[in-house]
């Protein structure tokens, strides 16, 4: 396979995932501002930060700015509109590497947000969020049921799990304050909605109740998002997927690269870590360091396969 093909598939995976994750963040923002007493300005700012959109401290960061940056901004690589276009663009460049079901899914209404204004976007925001999630879901479903499990599949999978790990880590970084044990007041007012919206943003509300009985505890929320090995948006889960995929590629190609070493080490680190250790060393530090590792691993993968 051409290195460029691998690159396009990798970024296809990342952009589909990013469109999906960004729509959840928008949902989180919209929900947080509905709670009485919430300072909406800060809520939207944290949503933008979690999406990795950098904004100067002085700038206005309310609902219009967030919707512009995360839904409508063309060519930014952060908005749902541009993620969908970039995903499709990468897919189109590798049209022959995709199954027709996957291509259909990418093509479906891909220009929905083109030229949409803020008012239209704001009025039907829940619909737009649903659409983006269904769009990403349809692509993943088509990929799951129609694509050969070869190296092409591997590169899309690498992209989506690297992106997902980064998203979850950024979410933790933005919200680490409400997860610290010293604020461990079970069932507190403002924190309760912070926690539920955090879980909603990672589609983990139900999962949380299945896994951890009783009231919300920030410790458990952090555990779910960082270390749980069954929850598909957790950092540990993503690293394990990345590592398995890289091992498959190494076997198929008969070649090992530095990214394999790093990925194995990260998988091991997440396997053996406990929330106790993490809180002892500092949640914020742990999250920052791991986020850095994800980006370094992404660079190594690109280097190894020449894209």
């Amino acid at each position: 396979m051409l290195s460029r093909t691998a690159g396009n598939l990798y970024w296809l995976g990342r952009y589909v995932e990013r469109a999906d994750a960004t729509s959840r963040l928008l949902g989180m923002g919209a929900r947080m501002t509905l709670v009485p007493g919430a300072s909406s300005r800060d809520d939207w700012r944290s949503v933008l930060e979690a999406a990795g959109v950098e904004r100067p401290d002085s700038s206005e960061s309310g609902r219009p700015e967030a919707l512009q940056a995360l839904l409508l901004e063309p060519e930014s690589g952060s908005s749902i509109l541009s993620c969908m276009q970039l995903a499709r663009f990468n897919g189109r460049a590798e049209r022959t590497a995709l199954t027709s079901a996957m291509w259909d899914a990418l093509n479906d209404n891909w220009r929905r947000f083109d030229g949409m204004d803020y008012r239209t976007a704001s009025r039907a925001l829940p619909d737009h969020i649903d659409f983006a999630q269904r769009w990403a879901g349809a692509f993943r479903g088509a990929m799951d049921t129609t694509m050969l499990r070869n190296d092409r599949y591997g590169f899309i999978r690498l992209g989506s799990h690297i992106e997902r790990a980064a998203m979850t880590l950024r979410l933790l970084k933005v919200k680490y304050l409400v997860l610290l044990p010293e604020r461990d007041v079970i069932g507190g007012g403002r924190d309760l909605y912070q926690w539920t919206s955090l879980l909603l943003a990672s589609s983990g509300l139900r999962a949380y109740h299945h896994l951890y009985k009783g009231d919300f505890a920030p410790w458990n929320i952090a555990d779910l998002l960082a270390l749980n090995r069954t929850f598909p948006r957790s950092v540990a889960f993503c690293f394990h997927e990345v590592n398995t995929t890289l091992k498959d590629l190494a076997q198929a190609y008969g070649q090992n690269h530095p990214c394999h070493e790093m990925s194995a080490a990260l998988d091991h680190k997440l396997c053996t870590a406990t929330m106790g250790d993490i809180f002892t060393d500092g949640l914020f530090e742990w999250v920052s360091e791991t986020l850095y590792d994800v980006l370094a691993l992404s660079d190594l993968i690109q280097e190894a396969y020449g894209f």
Partner: protein
Amino acid sequence: MTYDEMGPPGAVRPPYELVAQWIEDMGMSLLDLRAKEAEALFRRVGITFAVYGEGGDPERLIPFDLVPRVFGRSEWDRLDRGIRQRASALNAFLYDVYHRREFLRAGHMPEELVLQNPAFLPQMIGFDPPARVYSHVVGIDLVRMGGDDFAVLEDNCRTPSGVSYMLENREIMMRMFPDLFAKGGIRPVDTYAEDLRRTLEDVAPPACREQPSLAVLTPGPYNSAYYEHSFLADQIGAELVEARDLFVRDGQVWRRTTRGPRVVDVIYRRIDDDFLDPLAFRPDSLLGIPGLMHAYLSGGVTICSAPGAGIADDKAIYTYVPEMIRFYLGEEPILPNVQTYRLSEKDDYAYVIEHLDELVVKEVDGSGGYGMLIGPKSTQEERDAYRKRIEADPAGFIAQPTLDLSTTPTLCGGSIGPRHVDFRPYCLVGKRIRLTPGGLTRVALREGSLVVNSSQGGGVKDTWVLTEDSLC
């Protein structure tokens, strides 16, 4: 009087009997409905051509007309011989201009027309490409004015596009109307991909010792013909590459893959000469593969079509093709040229300037239907402005009479009416010549319009070549 290929009601010409019957059986409302279905099918498979910078949908569909264009067996036999003849002569001419230039020395053509032509590449002088072929895919644009009255409007020796429409139009027709094809009277076109692969393998470079590895070189997804590039790569089992995927080492061309570098033997390039190799052509260009020309000239790789093949399809050279056929093949041309005035010549110039309102004037290096003057449809101001352009550079223009192109029945706005068409067959030249029975019929969808270019509102049709003169 315009020649209609189907003929008047009650006197339908034999090749069109099946089509006439089919239209009658279907009825207008059903045909209309199925036309919409066809469009949805095309969009779903992603057959679009890109037009950037004009606003609107950046990926447009070329309108597809359901009513096929038909050639009977004996009509096609003659076209077949004429097309092969022309493709041979053009390749013989290319070999000659890069070697002994017998044609020029015999005084059949002014030397400067070749030597001062930007499409002429001095780097190619004295080089023998594999099988002595320069233009591996020759697209010959044909028009028809009467029953046996065909003429060649233009040759395309570099990288003629549109062949994917020939293949996809047929796919869609066979899928939607299997009954029409069930009797086996319509010759298949899907042999094209196989023939293209064989043609490219025929011309593997001397350095290639095993099964040649093929690549289709595309400018990338922004190119208007990108769909076709990926489609063809897929069909012939070649890798679809961009220049940045390739590099030259040890006299061979390699592509970067996830398993490391792999050799490429034959490159079917769909980019212009200028962008092949920055070392050889455009030092300012970031595009291209540095060292490619060197690898090519030393036998490490074959480039199809050969760099410099464009010298044969220049509009000023075109007028000499009938003479080439006589000179190289010792035969009379089966398909004549359209009468063409060379504005570089005094008498022709004087005539054209006097008769601008009757003629079509084209730039010798123009394409795509842009930059031409259609005399009868132009205003006085347009003609005056164009005259100034001609006066500034007479040799940059040729003129042809306004041709009364044949029409075929076409579905337009809920009824069927005659629309003008042209025709481009794709002739493959390797160790032998291969010609698919069919080609691309382009149709001017606007009533009375003669411009069939897809960029200017043209559409396409499936083209049938019958195994007999009539199927009824």
